């Protein structure tokens, strides 16, 4: 791998971070948008979704085990439903989805929590952007040696 290629591969590491964080931002937006959705195609209220992140390892890319730099970035492997807490039951007899007791099942989405997650995701996105910018400057500086 030549010197410039290494700088480009550094930019790609930051790009994987940007993609993964954007996936997280999309999922958070979906959670917030559906915070009051009481009916889904599976029946029952909307379930909060969470993204799973995993390191993108050199082995998994089929390059074989290498000593040294092994982490080539990050990847959002799946988006899964959060079953750790139950839907919130709210009394609202006039609601079309109210049960016999007049209770409505609302999603297990806590919008305050989602907003806090959104802020950390945005910050993480910016950090990856900074890292990417860093490689651009390094490449430009390396080029100037030749001038």
């Amino acid at each position: 791998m030549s010197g410039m290629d290494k700088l480009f591969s550094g930019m790609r590491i930051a790009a994987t971070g940007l993609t993964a964080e954007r996936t997280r931002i999309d999922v958070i937006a979906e959670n917030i948008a559906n915070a009051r959705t009481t009916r889904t195609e599976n029946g029952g209220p909307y379930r909060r979704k969470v993204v799973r992140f995993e390191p993108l390892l050199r082995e998994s890319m089929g390059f074989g085990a290498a000593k040294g730099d092994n982490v080539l970035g990050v990847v959002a492997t799946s988006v899964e439903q959060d079953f750790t807490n139950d839907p919130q039951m709210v009394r609202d007899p006039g609601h079309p989805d109210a049960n016999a007791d007049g209770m409505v099942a609302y999603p297990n989405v806590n919008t305050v929590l989602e907003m806090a997650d959104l802020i950390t995701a945005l910050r993480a996105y910016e950090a990856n952007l900074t890292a990417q910018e860093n490689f651009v400057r390094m490449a430009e500086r390396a080029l100037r040696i030749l001038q």
Partner: protein
Amino acid sequence: METPKPSNSNDILLRLLSASELRARVISANIANQNTPGYTRQEVRFEDALREAVASGSKLKGLQPEIIQDTITPARPDGNNVNLELELNALRENRILFETYATIMQGRTTLKDIAVSGGR
């Protein structure tokens, strides 16, 4: 410390530049994985080993930057020990080092050009 010979010092600068570039990639990988549960941050070690090798006058040929897993920094509850502020700071520090090595190298190249052209 003995001053390295001119031919040697270009080699040292190239190695420093290459280690600095590797460090930028490792820091970027840490930043990309700041929200990955169970991820252990990595670090590049090179300058100390280089300094020792130069001081003791041993061969630099086999000297390579080393990537180590940082198991000392305490992890968050999700098993990840990346601190975004520290990584961004390390990235900036590293860029200054890269700029420094590049500037020294550029200066050397310019000197050589002057020597070749006989100062005209």
